[in-house]
């Protein structure tokens, strides 16, 4: 996989395929920032990356703010959707999660608080083209 990558997935199967391939480039310590409107499939994509690591029971972290999974790697799955100000993130120890070099961190709605994202990260923008078709723009920053 070479970055930046711009690719269209025609349906869920192709999205799952892309998620699997993307999982191959991830290493402990990496952060993946996901950006896209409601219903573009940020959770769906993340769920399938984590499934490739061996946990298929991933659900939305919106309410919990962060879900933790033990797979081949330790996974922190964040969602900034419900966060009202950046101070709340500091307060729940966001720094400590990020500093965990054994874990891979996924962040949905990462664009809500760009100032708190690590400088080095994968950034995935997802755009809806129609009901099932999605455009993925993946950058390695």
């Amino acid at each position: 996989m070479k970055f930046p990558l711009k690719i269209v997935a025609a349906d869920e199967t192709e999205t799952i395929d892309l998620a699997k391939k993307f999982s191959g480039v991830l290493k402990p310590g990496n952060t993946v920032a996901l950006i896209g409107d409601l219903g573009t499939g940020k959770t769906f994509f993340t769920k399938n990356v984590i499934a490739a690591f061996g946990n298929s029971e991933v659900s939305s972290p919106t309410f919990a703010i962060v879900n933790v999974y033990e797979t081949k790697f330790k996974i922190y799955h964040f969602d900034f959707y419900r966060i009202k100000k950046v101070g709340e993130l500091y307060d729940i120890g966001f720094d400590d999660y990020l500093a965990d070099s054994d874990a891979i961190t996924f962040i949905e709605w990462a664009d809500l608080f760009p100032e708190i994202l690590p400088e080095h990260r994968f950034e995935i923008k997802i755009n809806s083209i129609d009901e099932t078709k999605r455009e993925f723009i993946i950058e390695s920053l």
Partner: protein
Amino acid sequence: MTVLGIETSCDETSVSIIKDDKLLSNLISSQDFHVKYGGVVPELSSRAHLQMIEPLVKQSLDEAGLKKEELDVVAATAGPGLIGALLVGLNFGKALSYSLNIPFVSVNHIEGHIFSGFLMEDKPEFPYLCLVVSGGHTLLLLVEDDLHIKKLGTTIDDAAGEAFDKVAKMIGLGYPGGPKIQAYADNGNPDAIKFPIAQLKTKYDFSFSGLKTAVLRHIQKEFGDSSKIPEDAKPDLAASFQEAVVKALTNNVKKAIDKYEVEVHSISVVGGVAANQAIRKSISAIAQNRSIKFVVPEFQFCGDNAAMIAYRAQKLYENGIISDLSANAYPSLPKDIFI
């Protein structure tokens, strides 16, 4: 026996005291501490829990008319939830039990919800079917007795409460989503728009992500975007969405009652979304149809609260299950969820 329970798994700080099955006090920060903290809903933070925990414990003892030396057991939520938030309640509870030299019981937050029907006068009868619907969870369970719970189904993506919040935002109804959708739905036609209800291969699982996206597509197709929805179209949107959630929930409840090998004696709906009238009504109708008892907790026991934690701790203690001071917080629901 007198149990003091502490709940700090997410947004709410809550302290409750139960004595011999009787509720003496149930304080919840967002409901009881507004005035003191300037009328602002406390933000999501461990510091907010830290500020509120001690005054809440004191006020709870005052309300119950007890001295702390009269407590027999201290309990706190250990998970699932936000680690920083959980640790505040858990460590406060452990320290309190240590200082009073009485047992400490750590409680699974979801187990608290599951047994919250027992806080009511009319209690569930084992075995009962339990539907947990909240912001973070949607679970269908068979509760065999105090110590045996079987998971029949769960959500594979969004929780029911999350769907309510996100759709309320899409329609432009504001926060909190649950009560707003309900209020608009009261004036709308639930059959106006046919939103899809997920049919999953796994028998009792739920999915609400597709429904959320379907509402979004409908809005985009009919109105362009959220900001252009005419006020008079909102009630039908809310009612039709709520109807789809109700159907998804009731389909699985019906299936479980009719097809599952165990004959259930009660149905209980618990968790924050159990406050929704349409959900209460339709599941109560299923129960009535089949002459099964229906139990739903009153509002103060639906959202996150410490009364359910104190009650659960009492049952665990009666069954000889106590924790030691090394009990740790856990962020996620363990795989083999319950005991």
